């Protein structure tokens, strides 16, 4: 209430004109408010659209020149002007797969521990520590990987896998082991995506109704049988959503992978061999790309990465949404 309005008499205060005026002012204010918040909200789809369009346009010269062979050809030779992204696509998929194979059981175990088993006093701190993994910057993971993980892989872990366990005879662990490898990238990715998978999994496990658990216990199930037969099936699509969300993270992760994967555009069956991912290819070559075709080819790699993560993320969100929506009803 301003001074001027305070001086108005009650009659003037409640006069039809004044009310009409203030309603009008409110209406304009409301309109402006709605317009601004709507504009900000619309900015998000617009931004996404802008990213999609501008990257596609920038990638077009390379995509139109190479066509489908861009993703099937495995020769990436900057000097010769040949750009086949197959090794990078292969490396992205394999390093992410390794990460999922390691991270999924761990994340599931932690989530079950936190939602079903852990004593109350332990839940907060353990959950907090796992969540903190997500706060560590990618470049710090990379630094740790270069100076701690790689030496470890070179000496005790690599020889242990190939010689002690005799896995060296399988193609998966054959060949020389320099440390910088698909395996190193997969392991660091596993640590990095663990908190994302476990956060979603924990949430969907907590969304499973109590009655589901009680019914299983009442039928004489042990606690593990209850978890396996009553809790996990109920939360299944949400858990899968969490795993796919982690996959989305792994596919696009850049810095740590760039520092550990060895950056060689070749396809090799061995996890000990260096490789390349789409993200690390861009990170490594983009600032040194001089020819227009090279820049365009890297943009095309970005476009493929964008498309893949878009599909993966959309799928994951949909799966998680299905479970949490059902439980909210």
């Amino acid at each position, binding site marked *: 209430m301003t001074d001027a309005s305070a001086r108005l008499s009650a009659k003037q205060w409640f006069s039809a004109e004044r009310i009409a005026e203030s309603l009008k002012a409110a209406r304009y204010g409301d309109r402006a408010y709605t317009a601004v918040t709507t504009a900000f909200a619309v900015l998000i789809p617009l*931004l*996404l659209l802008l990213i999609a369009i501008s990257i596609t346009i920038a990638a077009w010269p390379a995509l139109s020149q190479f066509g489908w062979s861009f993703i099937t050809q495995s020769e990436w030779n900057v000097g010769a002007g040949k750009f086949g992204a197959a090794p990078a696509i292969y490396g992205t998929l394999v390093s992410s797969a390794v990460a999922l194979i390691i991270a999924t059981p761990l994340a599931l175990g932690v989530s079950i521990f*936190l939602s079903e088993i852990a004593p109350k006093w332990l839940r907060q701190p353990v959950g907090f520590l796992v969540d903190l993994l997500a706060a560590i910057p990618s470049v710090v993971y990379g630094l740790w990987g270069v*100076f701690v993980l790689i030496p470890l892989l070179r000496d005790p872990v690599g020889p242990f896998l190939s010689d002690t366990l005799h896995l060296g005879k399988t193609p998966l662990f054959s060949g020389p082991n320099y440390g910088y490898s698909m395996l190193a990238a997969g392991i660091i990715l596993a640590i990095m995506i663990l908190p994302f998978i476990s956060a979603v999994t924990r949430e969907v496990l907590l969304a499973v109704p109590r009655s589901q658990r009680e019914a299983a216990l009442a039928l004489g199930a042990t606690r593990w049988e209850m978890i396996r037969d009553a809790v996990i099936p109920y939360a299944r699509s949400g858990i899968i959503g969490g795993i796919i969300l982690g996959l989305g993270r792994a596919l696009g992760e850049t810095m740590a992978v760039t520092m550990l994967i060895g950056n060689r555009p070749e396809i090799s069956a061995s996890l000990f061999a260096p490789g390349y991912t789409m993200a690390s290819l*861009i990170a490594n070559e983009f600032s040194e790309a001089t020819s227009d075709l090279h820049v365009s080819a890297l*943009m095309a790699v970005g476009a493929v990465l964008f498309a893949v993560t878009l599909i993966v993320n959309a799928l994951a969100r949909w799966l998680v949404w299905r479970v949490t929506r059902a439980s909210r009803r």
Partner: protein
Amino acid sequence: MAGLACDEGIEKMSRRSRHVRSKVMLGLTYAAAAMATLPLLFILVHLLREGAQYIRPGFFTQMPKPIGEPGGGMANAIVGTLMLISIASLIGLPVGIGAGLYLAERRGAPLATAVRFLSDVLNGLPSIVMGIFAWEFLVKPVGHFSALAGGIALGAMMIPLVTRTTEEMITLVPVSLHEAALALGYSRWRTSLTIVLRTALPGIVTGALVAIARIAGETAPLLFTALGNQFWSTSLREPVAALPLQIFTYAITPYDTAHGQAWAGALVLIVVVLTISMLARFATRSRFRAGTD
């Protein structure tokens, strides 16, 4: 009779084995929890061991020495990171909070559903893709790398994070508060900004802190935008140094002295990031406790 006794025996056996199995599986989840928390401890301990010795006052006030020479600091990178965070916040916070208000107030609207979904998709966008987009859109047209481009790229990454936490926090504000304000004759916009937003403010601040902690350590979007700079620069239109970029540059050199600087930089970065994350965490926790008890 004999058959029955036999069945009972089998049942007793299998019951015991089922319970053993349950114990084993539950034990495995303990192991998983231990294994999941170990990497964090390993990384933190190693950072402290390698980095702490290089943290001296000079680290915060001096410029970097040429790579390979001992000594020097990261003053320019620290200031650069602060600059980039400020630019990003100027973009990410208003847009994110505005969009969050919209989503919370139009829960069921088709546009709100679409925006919510797409903001989650944007949140999952690889940071390197944001980097090349920012290059294509902000660096290529003007012909030079700049702090502004880096800040904008980071700001765009903040938007979906801030949007979703704002929405969540505003949905927690009791509807009765909203209705009371409207019943007293407040206009909608004043209700939203002075009643609802203010009530949700602590939660929104937490969301903003989480978002800032996340972008503070981002490297990939800066590679082709802010680029990094060995010299002092606070100009928006020039390349600027940033802590994560500097760590990356030092880590991939073959010099031990540079590695030491990288560890020290990483230690500073992680202390900042973890402090912000923990502040955010405890702020919301005490708030929720106060609300639910």
